[in-house]
C-alpha cells in the first residue's frame, strides 16, 4: 500500500448561523477554501489533480447539483479534474479525506483534493423537505432513526449520568480555549479569509452601494459567557432536560479543503508533506445514542496501527454536544489537555459536512506548531455512526 500525504490544508473562518456568512453561498465558501489550498502549494500544476471529493450533509438547493464539481470549476481547477460530493452527515468532510487518501494508497490516483462545506444559514439542518420513510414509524426499533440530535444527547446524559454543570463546564472550557487560541493567533495559518462584494440598499434613497467585505475570524467564540450565564439557559430539546443551546455545538457556515499527494507526486512537484494519513475506522451504533460513535470507532483504529491512547499528542473530538463529549470521555478517557486544545464545535461551530475537514485542518496545523506526532480526528454521526481518522506529522 502506498503512502498518502497531506500537502496543503486550509479552511474558511466559521460563521454563526445567520451571522457573518448569512448572505454567502456555500459554493462561495468552498471556492474560497479550494483556492486557499491551491495557494499553499504554488509549485503544484493543478492539471495534475485527479479528483475532488467534498463532504456535505444537506446536499440540496445551493448545496445541491454536485456542489463539488461546480465549485471546483469555478475555483479555477482544470476541467480535466473530476469532482464528487459525498454525504455521511457530520462525518462527510472526514469521509471525503478518507476516500481521497485511499485512492492514493491504492495507487489509483496521485493528487487529490478533499474537503467539506456547509451553509446551515442557507440550507437548514434536515434540509427544506425532510421526508423520512414511512417504514421508520412502523416498528419502535426503527423509530430512533427519526430522532433529533438533541434527543440523542439527552439520552446520553441520562444513560451516563451526566449533570448539567458538567456539560456547562465543558462548554465554557471550549469557549475559553478558542478565545485564547484566537488571541495567540493559532488559527491564522489555517484560515483563508473570505472576501465578498456585497451590494447594500438604502431604502431612503433607493440607491445601492457595492462594498467589498473580508472575514478573517471564527465568529462563534464568546467572551461574554460564564457558568452563571450558561446555567440560565433553558433546555432546548427536553422540557426537563439538561442539553441547552449553550452546551451544544453551534449552527454554522464554513468550508475546508486539503490537498493529498502520493510519495511520487510529492517528489515530482516538489511538495512539502505536512502529515501522513495512517487510516480510518467507521462503526455503526444505535441511533438513539449516536453521540457515542467515537467509542466504537477509535479503539479498533488505534489497535490496527499499534498506537496507544498515550501516544496521541492531539485529539480533535467534534463537540456535537457537551453531553456527548463527556460520554465519550467516560469510555475513552482522552488526556484532557490534548483533547481539543483550541476549543471545539461548541465554541468554534459545527458546519455539518465541513466539520470533519475543518477539524483535520486544525489538527495538522496544531501538530506542526507543537511538534506533536500522532493526531486523531473523531466525530459522531446522526442516525448512529462513529468515525475516526489517524494522522502522523512528518
Amino acid at each position, binding site marked *: 500500500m502506498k503512502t498518502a500525504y497531506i500537502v496543503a490544508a486550509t479552511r474558511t473562518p466559521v460563521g454563526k448561523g445567520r451571522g457573518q456568512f448569512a448572505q454567502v453561498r456555500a459554493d462561495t465558501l468552498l471556492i474560497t477554501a479550494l483556492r486557499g489550498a491551491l495557494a499553499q502549494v504554488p509549485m503544484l500544476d493543478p492539471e495534475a489533480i485527479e479528483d475532488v471529493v467534498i463532504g456535505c450533509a444537506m446536499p440540496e438547493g445551493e448545496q445541491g447539483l454536485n456542489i463539488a464539481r461546480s465549485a471546483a470549476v469555478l475555483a479555477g481547477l482544470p476541467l480535466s479534474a473530476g469532482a464528487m460530493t459525498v454525504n455521511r452527515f457530520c462525518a462527510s468532510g472526514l469521509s471525503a479525506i478518507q476516500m481521497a487518501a485511499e485512492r492514493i494508497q491504492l495507487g489509483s490516483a496521485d493528487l487529490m483534493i478533499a474537503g467539506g462545506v456547509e451553509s446551515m444559514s442557507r440550507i437548514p439542518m434536515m434540509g427544506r423537505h425532510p*421526508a*423520512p420513510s414511512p417504514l*421508520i*414509524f412502523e416498528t419502535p426499533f426503527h423509530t430512533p432513526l*427519526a430522532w*433529533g440530535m438533541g*434527543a440523542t444527547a439527552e439520552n446520553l446524559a441520562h444513560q451516563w449520568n451526566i449533570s448539567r454543570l458538567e456539560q456547562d463546564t465543558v462548554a465554557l472550557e471550549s469557549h475559553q480555549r478558542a478565545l485564547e487560541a484566537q488571541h495567540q493567533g493559532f488559527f491564522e495559518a489555517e484560515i483563508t479569509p473570505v472576501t465578498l462584494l456585497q451590494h447594500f440598499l438604502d431604502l431612503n434613497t433607493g440607491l445601492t452601494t457595492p462594498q467589498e467585505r473580508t472575514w478573517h475570524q471564527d465568529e462563534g467564540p464568546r467572551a461574554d459567557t460564564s457558568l452563571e450565564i450558561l446555567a440560565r439557559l433553558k433546555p432546548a*430539546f427536553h422540557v426537563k432536560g439538561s442539553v441547552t443551546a449553550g452546551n451544544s455545538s453551534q449552527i454554522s457556515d464554513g468550508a475546508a479543503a486539503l490537498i493529498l499527494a502520493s510519495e511520487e507526486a510529492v517528489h515530482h512537484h516538489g511538495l512539502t508533506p505536512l502529515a501522513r494519513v495512517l487510516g480510518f475506522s467507521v462503526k455503526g451504533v444505535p441511533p438513539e445514542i449516536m453521540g457515542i460513535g467515537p467509542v466504537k470507532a477509535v479503539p479498533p483504529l488505534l489497535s490496527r496501527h499499534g498506537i496507544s491512547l498515550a501516544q496521541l499528542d492531539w485529539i480533535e473530538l467534534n463537540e456535537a454536544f457537551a453531553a456527548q463529549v463527556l460520554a465519550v470521555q467516560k469510555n475513552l478517557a482522552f488526556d484532557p489537555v490534548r483533547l481539543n486544545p483550541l476549543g471545539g464545535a461548541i465554541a468554534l461551530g459545527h458546519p455539518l459536512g465541513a466539520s470533519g475537514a475543518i477539524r483535520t485542518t486544525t489538527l495538522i496545523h496544531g501538530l506542526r506548531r507543537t511538534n506533536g506526532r500522532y493526531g486523531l480526528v473523531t466525530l459522531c454521526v446522526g442516525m448512529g455512526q462513529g468515525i475516526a481518522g489517524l494522522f502522523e506529522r512528518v
Partner: protein
Amino acid sequence: MAQIQRVAVLGAGVMGAQLAAHLVNLDIPVLLYDLPLDKGPTNGRVLQAIHGLKKMSPPPLVELERAGLIEVANYDDHLPRLSTCDLVIEAIGEQLAWKQALYARILPHLAPQGWLVSNTSGLSLEELSAALPEDLQTRFCGMHFFNPPRYMALVELIPTTRTDRDSITVLESFITTRLGKTVIHALDTPNFVANRIGVAATVITFHQAQNFGLSCDLVDDLTGPLLGRPRSATYRTADVVGLDILSHVISTTYTQAPDDPFRALFAPFPLLEGLISAGALGAKTGAGFYRKEGKTILRLDPMTRSYVPSGAKAEAGVKACLEVSLSQRLACLRASTHPQAQFLWAIHRDLFHYCALNLAYMAPSAREVDMALRLGFGWSLGPFEQWQLSGWSEVAAWIEEDRRAGKTLVDLPLPDWAMDPQRQVVHTPQGSWSAARATLSPRLSPPWLKRQHFPLRLLGEGGSTAASAGRTVAESEAARLWTLDEDILILTLRTKMNILGEVALEALDQALTEAEGHYRALVLWSPDPHFSAGGDLKGFIETYTRHGLTGLALAQERFQRVVQRLRCSAVPTVAALQGYALGGGCEVSLHCTRRVAYTETNLGMVEVNVGIFPGAGGLTEVARRAGLRALAAQSPLQVADYLQEDLTRILRCTVSQSAQEARSWGWLESGDVLVPHREELLHVALTQALALAESGYAPALPRLFPVGGVEGRAQMLAGLVNALQGGQISAHDFEIGRILATVACGGELPAGTLVNVDYLLGLERTHFGPLLATQKSRERIQSFLETGKAVRN
C-alpha cells in the same frame, strides 16, 4: 373635510407607543416621535419604546412584526414630516409647560387642515388651546385614550369652547370606524368624566372598606363579578393600574376640583401613600395591596402593614342578595344587617350621592357617566342605570334617610332634580338628564351611527335590540332566523356561548334552505361577545352513550353535511366573527363563502383539549386548503409542507390572538374583511353578503386536490416522535397527532393522490368515534365538563 389617513404620535411613552401599535395593527400609517438621544442612536428613545411593545402583556401588537411598520421620528430631524399627517396626537408628559413648548415647536410644520389633539388626562384643554393660533384652535381638542388602548373601548373627546363642533365628527368617525373605539364627549373639568367617576368609586370603596373593617381580598370578592364588574374589582385593579398613577389621579380631583363636595375624601390616603413611599407600586413592582409569593397570593394587612394569606369570600347570605333581580338587589342589601351587605349598600349609596351632587360639573349628561363606567371600567351597569332600575324616588329617599342618620360620607342633601318626587328616570329614549342644563340632553345621531344596527344602549334608553329587530322568519330555543331588509337572511344562535348542538345545527340547516329559497344571502351573526365556543360536547357524549359508535357517526355525518352546505349553498354565506370562534364554531366559519371578522377575534380548533379532533369537516378543510396550495405551487408531492403548521396548531390548540393573526395563518383568507368596531360588524357583514349576491354568485365547483399521503404522515410523525421524546407532548397527544396526520394526509394513500372532500370526511368519521371512546379522551372530556379546564393527560 378630508378623512384622516396618516397620524403622528408625539411622545413614545407607554401610551404613545401603544397608540402607535394600535394604529399599525389597523394598517393606519403612523409616525412615532420622541426627543433625539444625545448619545447612541438618535432615535434610540423611540426604538426602545417600539422594542418594548413586543414584550408587553397583554400584547399591544396583533403581530410582533408589525412593530417595524411604525415610522420612527425625532423632533430634531423629522418635524417637516408632520405636514403629511392629518392628525397629530400629543401624548407627552403631563406638564403644561412641556406641552406648550412642544406645540410652539411643531406649529410651523402642521398640515394646513390637520388636527392637533392632546391625550392629556389631567390638564385643562382650554389652557392648552389658549396658546395656539386661532385657526388651529378650531381643530384642537382633548382625545383621551385608556390604557391599554388596543383593548379599552372608550375614548373621551374633550372639545374646548373654540373647537369646531361640525368638523369634530371627522374625528369621531375616525375613532369609531377606523380605530374601533366608542366616543363619549366630556367636559374640560379635572379628570374629565371617566377618571373622575372611576376614581370616586375607588375612593368611596376604600373609605367604606375602612369603616366596615373589611380586608382588601374580601372587598374584591364583593365588588367584582358578583356586582357585574371585572374580576380585578377594586384593590387588584389599583395594583394593575399602579398605585402611583392612582394616587396621581386622586390628587388631581383633590387639587383641581375645589368645589367637589366630596373633596376631603380625595386627600392623600395614608395607606396608599405608605405603600408608594415603600416602593410598593402594585403589579409593576411585584407588591401593592397584594403580593405574589410563588403561587400563593398574599394580601396587605392594613393594621400591621404586612402581607398575610388572602382568599376571603363573600358571605352566602350576602351573595344571595346579589343573585336576586337587579332591581331588587339594593333593597335586599339595605335591609340586611350583615356588615358585608351594609358595606355594599353604602358604596352604592355614596356613589349615587357623589354622581348626583357632581353631575352638573363633571359630565354633559348622566349618559356619559354610565358609559364611562361601562366602557372604561368594565361595569355591566352604570350608577345612574342601577339607581333608575332600583326605583329612582325610593332610592333617593333612602339616601336622604341615611344622610339624616349621619351615615353618608358628605352631609349635603341631594340636588333638587334628584329629589323631585315626579322623577322616575334619568335615561329616556329621548335623551339623558343634563343637570347643568336642567333638561334632557338628546342623544346625537352622527353619520357613523347608521353603521351600527345595535349601538351600545343604556338601560332606559330604549331602542331596538337584536332579539326583536327586523322580521322573524322562524325561531326556536336554539336560534332566531330573521331579516332586516327582506334580502338577506340572518341566523342568530341563542344557545349558551352559541354552542352548536343538534337543535342549533337543525336551525342552520333550515336557514340554508330558507335562504336558498327566498333570500339573496345568509349571514351568521349574533349580538353576543362570541361567535361560537364550539360543538356540543355533552350532546356528543350522550349520543355515544345512548347509541354507540354508529349513532355518533350518524350525528357527526349530519354535522358535516350542514357544514358542507355552507360552502355549496346557492346563495353566499357570510360568518360575522367576534370573540371566540372555537372548535366547531371555527369549522363552521371556515366553510362560509366569506368571513367578516371583528379585529379581536380568537379563531382556533381546540378539540384536542377534550381528546377529540375537528371532525365536522375542519381537518378536511385544512387538508383541502393545503392540497390546493401545493397544487398551485406545482408541488403535489409536498402537501405535507403546507399542512404541517395547521396540524401543529390543531394539536397544540393554538388560538389566534387577533383576526390579523388568523389571517397570517391563512384561516382568514385574502377576501375576508376585518372590522375594527364590534358594533359595525353586522353592517359590514350585510354589505359584504349583498356585494357577493350582486356579483352573480355561484358556489365554487368542487375540485380534486392532492393529499400528503403516507409520506406526508411520516413527515408529521417525525415531528411528533421528537415532541414526545422531548417531553413536550403526552403519549395520548402523540396518538391524537398520529390520527390527525392519518386523516389529513388521506389514510394509506400515496403522496399526491387526488381526492375529494367526501373521502376525507369519511376518514374523519372512521377515526372520530374510536378516539372519543378511548379512556384518555373520555377523561379529557369529563374533566372539561366538570371543571371547564383542559387536561393534557
